[in-house]
């Protein structure tokens, strides 16, 4: 299945792209998609500490199972306001 991973801020800068489409086996979770991105874009930060996820624009835990066509957002520590 295909999942579109969106990157922001420090992740976006490290990867050099805003979006990565990853090919994942059925049952893959949010963290697995991020790990797949790290394989193709090794400059991505190697830690999951402080990273949150959103699937299709709703917050989701790191172990949430993805579905084909999902938009997964990788959210580094936020700093709005």
């Amino acid at each position: 299945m295909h999942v579109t991973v969106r990157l922001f801020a420090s992740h976006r800068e490290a990867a050099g792209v805003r979006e990565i489409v990853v090919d994942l086996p059925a049952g893959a979770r949010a963290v697995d998609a991020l790990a797949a991105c790290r394989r193709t874009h090794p400059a991505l930060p190697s830690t999951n500490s402080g990273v949150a996820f959103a699937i299709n624009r709703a917050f989701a835990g790191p172990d949430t199972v993805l579905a084909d066509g999902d938009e997964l957002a990788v959210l580094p520590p936020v700093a709005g306001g």
Partner: protein
Amino acid sequence: MTERFLLSEKPIDEAAVAALVASPGAGALVTFVGRVRARSRGHDVDLLEYEAYPEMVEGVFHQIAGEVHERFEVAAIAIHHRTGTLRVGDTSVVIAVAAEHRPAAFDACRYAIDRLKQITPIWKKEHGPDGASWVDERP
């Protein structure tokens, strides 16, 4: 009429945000305005670059407003946040809360800005004479 929950690259009109929540039953209006400071965590700041997940931000503001209405006796709340490049003194965020009585208005406004900083998918990069870095405000 302007939206109550808005992310925009345009300067925020603070009075217009406050006007969004006015009503004849609301005797208390508390407004929080966040501005870019000249110094931040020991560094001089020239400008801040805000980046957002725009398709998600207004939904998160709705969620925060829902939490506020569950917890406090308030009449209305509006949240506007700016994105893009901001200079010292520019307004980055405005939260206006109207309530019948002032304790709820103060408590709700404070809750909303705390929560906004906690969960809203917005990031900022500080640029100054010492270089540029993404802000990580985790305690």
